[in-house]
């Protein structure tokens, strides 16, 4: 080997000017935003003291007197979250499927994606406030708001999952003369169903957290109770409510997370299916 040959010539490096310019622009926006907020930095020193004072008021001696009521309201919040999740999933799975690049025609796909994007841009609280004027102050309003607000993200998850599914089975169904609907039912659906179920549970987990926020605007549930007692400045009850919210939410998260892992991980025992009779029809 001749060690004195010229070093290998790599292709010229792609220009990074655009990336650098963008970095400068983003940096400028961050600085402008901080200046615009008029933060009084001198108050920063009082924050730890305030936090400590209110924490003592809330958690030194929480008032457990209203625990049954709190649990009942928490239960309503969970119901709200659950119904909202079901509504959201039932609507977003078919719509999301139609919005997937390998299923829906472009004249269906593009409008649907625009709708998803618009819904994603509107916070749940705004949707709840709009619905309040129509349906009134009920937990159902909260559930409806959660259901509608979730469609944006859920629909996007659905079509992204379907687009990332392996092409193989779809090609085989098409090669055997199957239509798009048959491809969706017998090639795509089996491939994505576990992921979509897992997303549905994830939606439920998100909704539990969001439902507390919706309570603040009057959609009922534990959030409303929290808002009320904060207004009354009954800090010991507020402390109890916060403990209930955090503990219950963590428990629900753990349960839902365990189910999700079981779904995505598949059954631990395989080949358990016994021989059925022919004729699941």
């Amino acid at each position, binding site marked *: 080997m001749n060690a004195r040959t010229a070093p290998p010539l790599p292709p010229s490096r792609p220009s990074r000017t655009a990336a650098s310019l963008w970095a400068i622009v983003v940096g400028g926006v961050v600085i402008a935003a901080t200046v615009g907020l008029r933060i009084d930095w001198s108050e920063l020193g009082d924050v730890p003291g305030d936090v400590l004072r209110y924490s003592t008021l809330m958690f030194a001696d929480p008032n457990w007197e209203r625990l049954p009521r709190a649990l009942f309201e928490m239960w309503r919040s969970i119901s709200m979250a659950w119904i909202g999740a079901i509504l959201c999933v039932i609507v977003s799975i078919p719509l999301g499927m139609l919005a997937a690049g390998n299923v829906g025609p472009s004249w269906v796909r593009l409008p649907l994606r625009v709708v998803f994007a618009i819904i994603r841009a509107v916070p749940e609280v705004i949707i709840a406030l709009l619905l309040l004027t129509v349906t009134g102050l009920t937990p159902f309003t909260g559930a409806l708001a959660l259901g509608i607000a979730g469609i944006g993200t859920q629909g996007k998850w659905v079509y992204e999952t379907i687009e990332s599914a392996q092409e*193989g*089975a779809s*090609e*085989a*169904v*098409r*090669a*055997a*003369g*199957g*239509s798009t*609907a*048959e491809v969706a*039912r*017998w*090639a795509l659906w*089996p*491939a994505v*169903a*576990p992921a979509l179920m897992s997303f549905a549970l994830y939606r439920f987990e998100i909704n539990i957290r969001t439902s507390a926020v919706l309570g603040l605007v009057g959609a009922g549930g534990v959030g409303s109770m929290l808002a009320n007692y904060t207004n009354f400045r009954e800090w010991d009850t507020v402390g109890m409510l916060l403990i209930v919210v955090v503990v219950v939410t963590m428990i629900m998260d753990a349960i839902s997370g365990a189910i999700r892992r079981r779904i995505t991980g598949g059954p631990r025992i*395989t*080949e358990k*299916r016994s*021989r*059925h*009779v*022919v*004729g*699941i*029809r």
Partner: protein
Amino acid sequence: MRSAPQRPEAEVTPSASGSWSIRLDDVSVTYPNGTTALRNVSLDIAPGEMVSIVGLSGSGKSTLIRTINGLVPVTSGTVAVGPHTVNGMRGRRLRSLRGHIGMIFQGFNLADRTDVYRNVLVGRFAHTPIYRSLLGITTAHDRELALRSLDSVGILDKVWTRAGQLSGGQKQRVAIARALTQEPSVMLADEPVASLDPPTAHAVMNDLRRVNAEKGLTVLVNIHLMDLARMYTTRMIGLRDGRLVYDGPAAEAAESDFEQIYGRPIQPDDRLGS
């Protein structure tokens, strides 16, 4: 619940409804991204022939085989299968034509989370009203065809197993059963043994040869391995850079012919060995 017999009596056989010829006339394919995969290929395959298509990856084998069932539309030229012209066909007519053309793939292309039974019934979609196939309602005739096909490739006992739990060889047999359930007139195979170990590869090639011999089905196999092409097929077509560079009896193809098709000397992995 209606229960069909596990071992159906002999009246429906997943046999050919008549074997078809395949004719390509000056076919070229250019993909939307500008890649030209086939250049002016003309071919005439008689009903009942067993033909291998040999070439390196990227030589246009997969494209060629997919023009026959319209999965890849041709840019120019005509493709005819049996009495039908494939190019220009769309929608329902194309789907019904595909119903007569069975196809198996390198990656098996089964729905892994679905049981073998449902996978094989995909072969009946072209002949089933859409509402029935979407709801999974099958006729006794379809069930019998499916079970018979599974039996003919020797994996009837796996009918309730999830496809994902099978070995590679078993998966390819399910895929063959799926294609046979179509009662096809032509069988296409795109690198059917490239993902299999040598003994299983021979078993699958044997299954294909049996399909050809017993049912008189026209079989077209894309294959990279020269020894399998010689051993199992009667006629060999060589593709290089999208051009047809060889067409002759497979058994007589010499090393030099392969070197000409590959455009390079023979390498050890051009043979399966055994």
